[in-house]
């Protein structure tokens, strides 16, 4: 019985990433408030079946790398005043992520 090789782990801890907006309907686990936002990889969580397929009974895989991604609150909600140091961490499946084309902007005074 052959088994397809695992999808590559494309990101390392600390990598700057941007969340895609794939425009998918259904059981999507990437909330809108992080789409198009930039953050950094906090942790690789392992491989999990894609919930978008799993929710309709498709367990054929392949398992997808899952990461925890950390965002600065001020990047998520730039129009609101909030403390500089607050962050939000969320799990994002690999296919919703792309490398950020340039580094995260430095803190501005």
């Amino acid at each position, binding site marked *: 019985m052959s088994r397809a090789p695992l999808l590559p782990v494309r990101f390392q801890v600390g990598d700057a990433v941007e969340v895609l907006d794939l425009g998918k309907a259904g*059981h999507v*686990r*990437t*909330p809108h*408030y992080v789409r198009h936002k930039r953050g950094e990889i906090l*942790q690789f*969580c*392992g491989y*999990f079946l894609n*919930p978008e397929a*799993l*929710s309709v009974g498709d367990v054929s895989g392949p398992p997808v790398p*899952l990461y*925890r991604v950390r965002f600065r*609150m001020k990047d*998520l*909600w730039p129009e*609101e005043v*909030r*403390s500089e*140091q*607050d*962050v*939000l*961490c*969320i*799990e*994002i*499946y690999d296919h919703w992520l792309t490398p950020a084309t340039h580094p995260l902007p430095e803190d501005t005074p």
Partner: protein
Amino acid sequence: MSEPNPHTVHAHEHTIHDHDHDHDHHAPSLVMEDEAGNLDGQQLVDALQAVLVRKGILSPGEITLEIQAIEAPGTHLGAKIVARAWTDPGFKARLLANGKNGAAELGLKVGEAQLVVVENTAEEHNLIVCTLCSCYPRSLLGQPPSWYISKAYRARAVREPATVLREFGLALPAGTAIHVHDSNADMRFLVLPLRPPGTEHLDEPGLQALVTRDAMIGVAQALRP
């Protein structure tokens, strides 16, 4: 079908992955009732259960046992983990590295895929929310409180966490970084609260009594003795 059924209130918990797939789109069903007091969706669940029982696929006794199993976990399990972490630095390190393995050391089985334990410090406070539904470490804390499932908490915890915490009565020292964890996928999260001052003399059972559900979600600190 409209007869009271002791099982139906819990039927929404019978999910394969503790993922509550339906809550995303039907979250109001937990709180909205019709004129007769039925929860939205309850009649459907009643009908399904009646068919399964009639066909001999399930017995009412099995359903009751399953409900008991679902309801058996409670805050006391999470409190055991926290109290041990407060008293055993080696355990704490292993727990923070891998929550599931840490829980297993205490004989606690985490039913979810993985457990991530996040540690509060003097500089950092952690808060757990599931914006998309009601993901929660049920195998360790039992069923989530109703406010955790509410749309207001889910929307606001990721947007104005400091305000939400103040409404819960938790005013953090100025400069404390709030780390919000949106439990949206396969991880489950447990907050390791700060050990309260004045607890040096307490043994593990004494410490466990200070560890509340809210402290392990991150909307409160552990109790003071």
